[in-house]
Every structure is written in C-alpha cells, then in structure tokens.
C-alpha cells in the first residue's frame, strides 16, 4: 500500500529521520522554532531535539551562513533555512567565497557538509523582492550542489541525500509544491543528486520543468493528450550536477524540447541545457525552446503577475505550436482540476 504524504510532510520526515540517526545534524534559521515552523517542515523539532539542535537565529543571513559553515567545518551537519530565496542574496559571500571554495583552496583538507534550504515560489502579490528564484546564479559556481525536486518522494530522498552529502547543497522548495501529495516510503532513503527523473514517458516532445514547473509540465501533458500529443516530462531534480544524458536521450527520441525554467531565462538552466545539447551534437532537426519568467522583476498585481510566470496552458500551447509549426492560439477544452490547493495568502 502506498503511504501518501505532502511535500511538506516529506521534508519534515527527512529532517526528523536524519536528526534521529545522526546527532551531528542541526537545524537553524529564522523561525525554525516558531509556531508556523517553516510551513510545517520544522514544526515540533525543537521539542523533539532541543534548542541546541534546533534554533532560531538573528536576522543575519550572511553571518548565520558563516556560522553554519564553521559548524560544518567542526563536523556538524547544519541544515540552514531561508523562508525566501531572495534573502540568500545576503549570503552570497559566505556561500560562494567560502562554502563553495574551502575544500578546493585548502587542497581537500576540509569539507563543508551544509544544506541550505530556501523557498521559492509565487503565492500572491509578493512582488519583486519576495519572488525570486536565483538558482542559475549558483549553477555558475563550481563547488555547490543544487537540487529542486518536485515530488514528495524526491523531496524526502534528495533532502536525506543532501544532509548526508559531504558538500554544500542548496535545496530549493517551491511554495506551491508544499500541497503536492504523493507516495513516500516510511524508511529513510536517498535519491542521488545528479540523475534526472522522467516523471512521465512520451514520444512526441520532451518537456523539462524545473521545480514546480515539472508539475506544470505534467498538467500540460494532460492538456496535450486532447490533441494526441504524447509528451515526455523530465524533472532534472539536481541542477548541479546536471544529468544532461537523460535529457539528451529523450530529445534524440522526440526531436522536440521545451525547457521551462522557474527563473529568468538569461544565463539560466534552460540556456545551459541547450548549450550542452548543442555541444553534444544533437540531431540537426531537433527544435528547441526555452520558457521562464518574463524578463522583469515580478510585479505584485495579479493582472500582471499571471503573465509573469509560465504555466501549464502556455507550455501546452508552445508545444502545440512547435509540433504543428503553427502560430494558432490553441487552447485545451478541458479544465484541469489543480491537484494542489491553490495558495491563499497572506504569508
């Protein structure tokens, strides 16, 4: 029988299990011990593990990242949480100048086993400073691992892998994914960082969706069935290292690719995937497209915000237009029921 958990429960379970089996795992971050417990993912941890292992921090993103790095140097395995990825911009110095480089610049003498959790994703009207998803910035930097799983199963497995990994791992969670539910085994298990997941098989077009965009791709796939298009949907899971081969195999088969970044496209994951495919001499008749955020800061008003983000219908429309070399504004007839609860503010 399948045990069904939400994405949020899966994350919490991963943390609880790792904390239970390894006293070196600690959890820190603004609000990790508060009544809301980072959308439930750290709820009750302080009661279970005590305030030395689970603690709130000052508003000091750079400093606390350094603290996590130092604790990791001393052999702890800190899981540091940011409730929005926008705040990680304050911690770039420690993450990039220190965490990503220390092992190399000290000739392998040290290792930095930290996990930096950060939440991305729209809810509503969050605006320019509360909506960013800046994983492309980290993909540029050697020495960091990055993953952004879209299902509860992979959330648990990747997070456990991240905590056990001996290197800095950025773990990216989309707010809307928290309401995803799915099969999650009871025991602790790992999902490797560096292997993409084929979420659905198909033969006509490959859709690569990052983070919550993988779910939008699954929806787009449903829409496309109406017109007998059979889409393959891939969640890269890990952005660094990036498993280009799974994508390559799929594209060789389907000859059509859309990569949907949950981020701005310039120098994004989409660009990197396209470049790597071209370098690997994909067949010349493959058609490729990138999608992602509009190239502006995120506006708050829903009148504009809804055009800022790609969604299932837009993905389906792009797939349709690519396949039929058609500019028609095709629309699916059926309206899909959102599997996940639509986020309702405020937060």
């Amino acid at each position, binding site marked *: 029988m399948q045990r069904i958990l939400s994405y949020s429960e899966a994350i919490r379970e991963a943390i609880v299990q790792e904390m239970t089996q390894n006293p070196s795992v600690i959890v820190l971050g*603004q*609000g990790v011990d*508060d*009544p*809301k417990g980072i959308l439930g993912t750290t709820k009750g941890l302080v009661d279970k593990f005590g305030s030395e292992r689970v*603690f*709130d*921090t*000052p*508003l*000091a*993103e*750079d*400093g606390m990242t350094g603290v996590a790095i130092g604790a990791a140097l001393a052999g702890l395995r800190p899981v540091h949480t940011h409730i929005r990825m*926008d*705040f990680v911009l*304050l911690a770039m110095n420690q993450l990039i100048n220190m965490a990503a480089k220390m092992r190399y610049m000290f000739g392998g003498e040290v290792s930095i086993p930290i996990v930096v959790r950060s939440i991305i994703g729209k809810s*509503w*009207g*969050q*605006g*320019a*400073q*509360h909506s960013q998803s800046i994983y492309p910035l980290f993909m540029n930097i050697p020495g960091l691992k990055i993953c952004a799983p879209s299902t509860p199963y992979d959330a648990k497995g990747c997070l456990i892998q991240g905590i056990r990994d001996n290197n800095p791992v950025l773990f990216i969670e989309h707010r809307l994914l928290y309401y995803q539910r799915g099969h999650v085994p009871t025991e602790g298990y790992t999902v490797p960082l560096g292997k993409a997941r084929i979420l659905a098989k198909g033969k006509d077009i490959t859709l690569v969706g990052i983070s919550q965009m993988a779910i939008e791709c699954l929806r787009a796939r449903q829409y496309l069935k109406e017109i007998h298009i059979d889409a393959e949907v891939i969640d890269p899971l890990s952005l660094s290292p990036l498993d280009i081969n799974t994508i390559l195999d799929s594209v060789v088969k389907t000859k059509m690719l859309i990569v949907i970044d949950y981020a701005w496209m310039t120098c994004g994951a989409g660009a990197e995937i396209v470049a790597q495919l071209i370098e690997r001499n994909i067949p010349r008749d493959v058609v490729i497209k990138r999608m992602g955020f*509009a*190239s*502006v*800061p995120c*506006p*708050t*008003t*829903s*009148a*504009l915000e809804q*055009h*800022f983000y790609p969604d299932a219908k837009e993905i389906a429309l792009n797939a349709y237009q690519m396949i039929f070399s058609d500019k028609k504004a095709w629309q699916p007839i059926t309206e899909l029921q959102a599997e996940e609860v639509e986020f*309702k*503010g*405020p*937060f």
Partner: protein
Amino acid sequence: MLAEKFYRSLYRIRRIEEEIARIYHTDKIKSPVHLSIGQEAISVGVCEALRPDDIVFGTYRGHATYLAKGGNLEKMIAELYGKSTGCSKGKGGSMHLIDVAKGVMGTSAIVGTTIPVSVGYSYALKYRKSNSIVVCFIGDGAVDEGAFHEGVNFAALKRLPILFVCENNHYAIHSHHVSRRNSDNICERVQTYGMQAECIDDGDIFRIYDFTNNYIKRIMMGHIAPVFLECITYRWKEHVGPNDDFHLGYRTKDEAEYWIQNDQLKKLKSLLGADISSKIESAVDLETKNAFEFAEKSDFPEVKELYTDLFKD
C-alpha cells in the same frame, strides 16, 4: 493645535488600516499587508515635525509612514488593489509604497536594505548643502543585520543629516529579541558609533514629536549630525495579515495590555473632546470611503505594462 493635527493623522491611519483589515478576506487586496496598528504614533509624531522637503524611507510595514508623511491616500489604496492608478502602478503592492512629491522615497521588503540607502540619500542632501533631513524608519529586527552596522557607521563617519527611527516592538515575525540579541540595548550600541541615541519607551506622541522637532532645529542651526531614536512600541495584529495572533502562543495578550491601554489615539481623543474628534473622524471616514471607491473603480494595468518601467531612457 498640535493634538488636533496628531489626532487627524493618527485616526486616519488607524481608520484606513482597519478598513484594509475589514475587507481583506474579500481578496480584493492581493498583496500581503503588514499593519502598523498600535505603532502609528511613531510615524505621526515624527512626520508631523517634518517639513515637506524632508525625506522618509520605510519598511514593508509602511502604511503609517507613507500616510503620516502625506503620501497620497487614493494611490495607496489603489496600489493595494493592484490597480494602474496605484502609487507604483500596481507593481509594488503594500510593501512598495512611494510618493516622490511628498518625500516618501519608498518602502522595502528586505529587512535592513533601506538603512544604507537612506544614508546615501542624506549624503546627497549634505553634499548639496540642503537643509533637509532623511528619516529612516526601521524595525528592531533590522538591527540584527550587517547593513545596520555598515549604514549607521557611515552616517556617523560623515556626520550626515539623518534621523534613524527604530520601532522596537520586540519581535521580528515571531522571534523575540531575546533569541536574537544578548541584551536589549540598541541605543547604547549606537552611541558607540559616535552619534546621539535616545529611547522613548512610553510611546508618547508628544515626546516623539518634540525629539524630532529639536533635531530639525539643530540641523537648521547648522549642527549637522545623525541621530538615533528608538521608540518602544507594540504590534497589535499578526506579523502579516489582518488578524490577531495571540492564540499562536509566541506572545501573550497580557504583554500587549500596557500598549492597548496606552493607545495614543484614545489619549488624544480624550484630550480633544468629542466635538473636535468626531468632526475629524467624519472627514476622515469620508476620505477613506472615497479612497476605497477610487481603488475599486480604477482599472488594472494592461498586460503590456508588464514590460515597462524596467529601465529609464
């Protein structure tokens, strides 16, 4: 009369925020709101002493700052509604209010970011030999950030015309200062940077006003230097949103009691008497009603607006 001016501004802010809270469940305001209810007297006390050319910077909890400094009400409500008539054309929402004409130079959702920005603005004022000052409103949470240290240090170093106003409500979201700082001695710390720092711990609007007024007087006499004012206060509502949150358990109603009793609005009202206060109230009520109607009636921005306002030619 001072009390009357204070009451008008204070009542207006309270009234408007309560209206925001009242209609919030309708989802007409699709923007997270951080209400100042309970803390408004600080913005009012400070801004009533300011001159039109003085500049304020605020935080995401910025309705009071914006309104107290004279920010356009209709445009604020329209902004919350995401309408094209909003002060930021609907692109900013509740956390990004601005009224350049009134010297409200913008509120930010990233804690601490406006500190060095305010300092930089005041550098420009001094450079231009202007008589104006900048007021930088921050929460106690911002004191934790490195930007606080760097910003305050530079203001002290260059002796800039800036008044920092720290609204110390003891909490950053649900986090009390005891989990963020060893002791609650912000002023003592700030003094070591080389500037005057004082704490007003009773919320008294007249004291806040006087302090600001004195600061401006000294500036006008040519004594240009930064000053720091800490005002102890209390947030009545939840961190974000229109509700109470005492049930969450991170703070108690008891703790709030002093501040609810000490409500400056109530105090001013009893000072003024029913006649004057009710006259003010009905004028404000009408203004409020009109502002929400204005927002309701305004249009949403057209889709092409998504791509405008990125760069200035």
